[in-house]
């Protein structure tokens, strides 16, 4: 992947996502920044209510160098569908539509819209940055919080031992739709992630990337540990989200 190799991971002067207010060590903002370096300026970005919209464009401090818009929490994929439809109708050329939604915005409240969009083979890239809880609202349990994980709504005490449900297998859920391209990744392995964004960029139809994006604030880890942290996930997920990330075409 010559393109991936060419990309400098370090900050440059023409970053498409710069000047935001994310916490130090934020895995989610790294996922956004790296993907936009691949996709470039001719990109329409959709972000639902959540961390990235809260830190990315708080008027008048707008951190995106490309087109960007906040969707409803449940409406990432449906708003992207509308953008993709309008781009077709207006006969735009040479552009990308990408959405960045968290684990809750994807696997819980946004799942219906995501399902419909994949079903229509909408031509866009959906990136789920998974920090394993609702971090923007203060670390509450989501559908992608692993079993046993302690969050503010799945506390640990004499009558409870953290999250009571298994982490939803969002990759399999998405893949079962017959999606055009789906892959897992982690921000810890940036070149692998970038390679997969590249693949999504050239895919006709819907692409879905599930990228593990540690949240030092929510996980209680040092901000220097973002790229080392692996989350508290079941073994099967560790395999998926590790260096040898599964990559599936259907």
């Amino acid at each position, binding site marked *: 992947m010559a393109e991936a190799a060419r990309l400098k991971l370090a900050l440059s002067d023409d970053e498409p996502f710069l000047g935001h207010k994310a916490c130090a060590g934020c895995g989610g903002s790294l996922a956004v920044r790296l993907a936009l370096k691949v996709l470039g300026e001719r990109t*329409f970005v959709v972000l639902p209510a959540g961390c990235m919209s*809260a830190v990315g464009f*708080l008027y008048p401090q707008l951190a995106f160098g490309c*087109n960007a*818009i906040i969707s409803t929490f449940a409406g990432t994929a449906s*708003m992207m569908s*509308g953008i993709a439809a309008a781009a077709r109708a*207006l006969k735009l050329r040479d*552009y990308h539509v990408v959405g960045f939604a968290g684990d809750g915005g994807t696997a819980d409240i946004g799942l219906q*819209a995501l399902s419909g969009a994949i079903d229509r083979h909408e031509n866009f890239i959906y990136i789920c940055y998974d920090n394993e809880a609702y971090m923007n609202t203060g670390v509450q349990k989501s559908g992608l919080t692993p079993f046993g994980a302690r969050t503010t709504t799945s506390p640990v005490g004499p009558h409870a031992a953290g999250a009571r449900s298994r982490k939803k297998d969002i990759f399999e859920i998405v893949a079962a739709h017959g999606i055009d391209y789906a892959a897992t990744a982690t921000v810890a392995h940036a070149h692998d992630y970038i390679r997969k964004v590249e693949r999504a960029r050239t895919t006709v139809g819907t692409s879905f990337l599930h990228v593990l994006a540690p949240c030092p604030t929510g996980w209680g880890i040092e901000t220097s540990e973002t790229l080392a942290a692996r989350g508290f996930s079941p073994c099967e997920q560790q395999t998926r989200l590790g260096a040898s990330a599964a990559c599936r075409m259907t």
Partner: protein
Amino acid sequence: MSVEATARQPQPLFMSGNEAVAWGARLARPHVIAAYPITPQTVVIERLAEWVAEGKLDTEFLHVESEHSALSACMGASALGARTFTATSSQGLLYMAECLQYASGGRFPIVMMNANRALALPWNIYGDQQDSLAVLSSGWIQIYIEDAQEALDMTIQGFAIAEHAEVLTPVMLNLDGFVLTHTYEPVDVPAQADVDAFLPPFRTPSKMSLEAPTSMGFTAGPAHYTEFKVQQHRAILRAERVASEVDQEFGRRFGRSYGGAVVPYRCEGADVVLVTLGSVAGIVRETVDKLRARGVAAGMLKLRLMRPFPEREIVQALSTARFVGVLEKDVSFGYRGAVFSEVSSALAGSAARPALLNFVAGLGGRDISRNDVEQMFVELQSATVRPLGEQVRFVGVNSNG
């Protein structure tokens, strides 16, 4: 794909209110239609889908997975400067509730038809106005339609109003479920070329574009939020004048106009006036004629706009009335009909202090008969200024109910 432009139909076509809306949407040439089926709106999107299939309508038709997604997709499309249309009803409108506020706050000039239908529980698919009046404050321009011709014409006018540079606010076209959506009438279908001349393609600098990338629908904190909301409020207020201008221009071009925000019928010198909205205006008008023939100074004030609310026109039209009733198909539980509240509020600023009564009728599709309307006028004539809390009448309630 090129689509052959339709000529003006030499004879009126026999069509339902739903089909009239579909025709209006077709003639407006939307780039994107995103819709989800719900009774009694379905025929609108069925016709549009058929025309797409037949090559008569060149649009991106999205089969979305919910009403929430329908409006969300319309917002995404509108953010690129595309013309967008959708249609819904009742539960679907409420399922959109979050997106309604998003769309108006984002200043997306979407046009949406709403088939007015009752809200569950109890489950009920028939017409009343509880749905749209429950979202009166959502920032949408609300237009209430009386017949199928008006439905077609106002769908076209709706885009002209919504997309006006001084407005940029979404429009909700309300048609009474079944009574209007499923009633067939002869409707004049204008030529595509004439509609194109009246409604040119939507152009706006406020959009996401590849040439000038921008952020839309961002976050604004306490330091800036108020200013955006004040702008939004002023824009929808301007829609009253713009709607009137659009209607006059439409009248010049097509020979039909609908009279702006309110339509007074025999209100001049009227002593007793019934204010109403939607398709029931037909029998109220007939009743007014009947009463006038008997020497009763009766009148009707039809409201076409509920938002922006035509306060001045209402006060002016009711300036001579001693008795004013409001007939509506909804109730704001715990108080009274939503329209009655608005009309009463407007009259509080008027020198005239008529006696006021609120007639809540037609809930869940119950028929409103000529006799019902006549009885309303009878009761109104003997009305006195009622103590607070005694102004609401539920019409035709079974005694054992």
